[in-house]
């Protein structure tokens, strides 16, 4: 199979958005830094020396190697190595104002990371940026009122297996569907606490998509009937509008629950394909409108803690599936073991079968389990599994701390199943992993 990348993917900017649609959506050029981040970064830099107590930082540098025993039709590589430097800092400027930032610097051997000297601020590139501003925000707190403005991480939901209500949390699925990192979003978040109730309002004026696997690499599954095709990445059509959401959380006596509403766009793409010739096609991402209502709850019982989460995904434009995703899980701690087990389910109310990339739906209809054993203060062993009718995944990870700064991790993931199954289609992607991390 021959997979091409469009010229657009190779440009300095690297944005797959065609120029016309970029102008239409009124996007700022990539790498553009608005004044607020500059001000915050300068303040943080000054604060290191001037205000020691109010300044806090942490971070790590990690080198990870993934070894794939098998190749795939679109990826002949066996070994992928990546180095990540992550630095997070905050500065308490006043009792009511805190400034936050986080920066990533990456390099890898597999062209999953760009080879460009630019600071990314919007996470819209197809490859991972080499230098990325993950977070740059100001947190304002006064009494029951908290607001965070800027690039930040917003997490909703209570379940650990799958979070259908977590709509302001795009993910980076580029190098693995089974282990992904969260991406920040540019948003304004206001939280008000009143007794045992918390009200959360979020407005996100600037859309951040989840990052999907590269077409010419193993985590993009090419159906066998298209293996002879030359498939070009046609980039993405990003929605121009904003999105917003609201959540009410109540903590009661021995239970807690929340209800939420979201109106915006799915951060996971659907695709349109246009044939360029008898065996050539261009695939373009788009992000359909999404309206969601959902809720979650956690109830600690004598033997287990029960957590549940469910959401109804509505397609206001009527061009995508409408469905319910739900999770029910049990959690228990026994001595040094912690167990989580449950079921992630799906009920489709309207099926249009769009061509889409959706790991969260792909992991639905699964029995999922996790067991973690704290061997001693320095060593942990983790087992994870997801079992579907036609596909399964199991992962084991051993991690050990060495002194105050170093940690080594070794693991293996085993994926089996049919090509018709979301998990099973990656049955050639079982891997071994090794990582060394220095935290500071």
């Amino acid at each position, binding site marked *: 199979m021959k997979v091409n990348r469009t010229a657009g993917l190779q440009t300095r900017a690297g944005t797959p958005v065609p120029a016309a649609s970029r102008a239409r959506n009124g996007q700022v050029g990539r790498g553009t830094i608005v004044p607020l981040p500059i001000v915050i970064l300068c303040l943080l830099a000054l604060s290191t020396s001037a205000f020691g107590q109010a300044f806090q930082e942490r971070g790590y540098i990690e080198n990870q190697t993934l070894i794939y025993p098998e190749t795939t039709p679109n990826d002949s590589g066996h070994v992928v190595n990546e180095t990540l430097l992550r630095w997070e800092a905050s500065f308490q400027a006043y009792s009511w104002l805190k400034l936050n930032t986080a920066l990533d610097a990456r390099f890898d051997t597999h062209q999953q990371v760009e080879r460009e000297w630019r600071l990314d601020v919007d996470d819209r590139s197809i490859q991972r940026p080499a230098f990325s501003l993950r977070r740059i925000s100001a947190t304002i707190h006064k009494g029951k009122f908290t607001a965070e403005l800027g690039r930040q991480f917003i997490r909703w939901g*209570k379940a650990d297996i799958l979070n259908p209500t977590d709509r302001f949390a795009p993910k980076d699925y580029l190098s693995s569907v089974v282990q992904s990192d969260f991406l920040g979003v540019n948003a304004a978040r206001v939280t008000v*606490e009143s007794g045992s109730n918390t009200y959360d309002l979020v407005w996100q004026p600037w859309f951040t998509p989840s990052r999907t696997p590269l077409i010419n690499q193993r985590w993009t599954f090419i159906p066998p009937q298209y293996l002879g095709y030359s498939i070009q990445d046609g980039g993405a059509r990003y929605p121009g509008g904003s999105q917003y959401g609201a959540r009410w959380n109540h903590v009661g006596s021995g239970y*807690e629950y929340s209800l939420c509403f979201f109106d915006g766009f799915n951060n996971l793409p659907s695709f349109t394909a246009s044939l360029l010739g008898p065996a050539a096609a261009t695939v373009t991402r788009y992000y359909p409108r999404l309206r969601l209502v959902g809720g979650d709850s956690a109830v600690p019982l004598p033997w287990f803690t029960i957590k549940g989460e469910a959401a109804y995904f509505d397609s206001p434009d009527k061009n995508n599936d409408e469905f319910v995703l739900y999770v029910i899980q049990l959690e228990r701690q026994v001595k040094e073991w912690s167990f989580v087990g449950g079921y992630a389910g799906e009920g489709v109310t309207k099926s249009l079968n769009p061509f889409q990339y959706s790991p969260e739906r792909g992991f639905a209809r699964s029995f999922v389990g996790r067991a973690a054993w704290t061997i001693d203060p320095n060593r942990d062993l983790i087992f994870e599994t997801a079992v579907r009718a036609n596909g399964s995944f199991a992962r084991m990870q051993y991690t050990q701390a060495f002194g105050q700064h170093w940690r080594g991790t070794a693991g293996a993931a085993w994926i089996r199943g049919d090509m018709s199954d979301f998990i099973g289609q990656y049955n050639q992607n079982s891997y071994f992993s090794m990582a060394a991390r220095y935290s500071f």
Partner: protein
Amino acid sequence: MNKFLAGLLLAATVSAQDARQIIQEVQKRQASKSQRYEGTLEVRSSENRVTTKRWNYLRIGDFGNSKAMLRFTAPPEVKGVALLIVNHTDRASDQWMWRPSIGRDQRIALQDRSTRFFGTDFSFEDLEERDVDQFDFKLLGDENGMWKIESKPRKSSQYTYSYQWVKKDNYTVVKIEAYTKKGLARVIDYRDYEQIKGIWTPKTTEVLDVGRKSHTVLRYDKVDFNIPVKEDEFTLQALRRES
């Protein structure tokens, strides 16, 4: 005979009341509206491997009905991890943890409260504040200027009973031996008492996990009481905001 039985019953009641009164006096003398300290934990395993952790601790409220926030500051890999503990007088505490890597608070499932806390020799139950009404007490006698008191939990606990040694001169607890069905489980020593704002305060706590043969020494620095602390520093939002 009846007089003898009545006498025995009276003696037992007086003994129980005395023990309860002693513990109430201990709690009364240690009462504070808020507390802060910086803790350094040294965990020494049976193989003599040493791990050091540090946290900042902040508490508000009356004993047994308080809220506490605990934030790790070292080692680097756990920096930013935080725990919110909400104690209740009538039941086990609620606890939520914040991990920066996840970016979300998580309710801690603590069905087994004998679980070790973050790899230390403290169990989660040891960190809880339990009101005097949650125990039955019995005064066992005097030992070297200390009262030896037996306490039995009325509600579910990993411990079947404990012995506490309370100094008579200043009503401070210097030692606890905690027993499970299998026998002695933990020995907790409170040392280096100092008076801070009129409250006798241990500057060192040492826990021995008898089964594992491992020790944890917790040293308290910058201890302060009755400081101005706001309720909104002990909420799920504060857990997220300050980490």
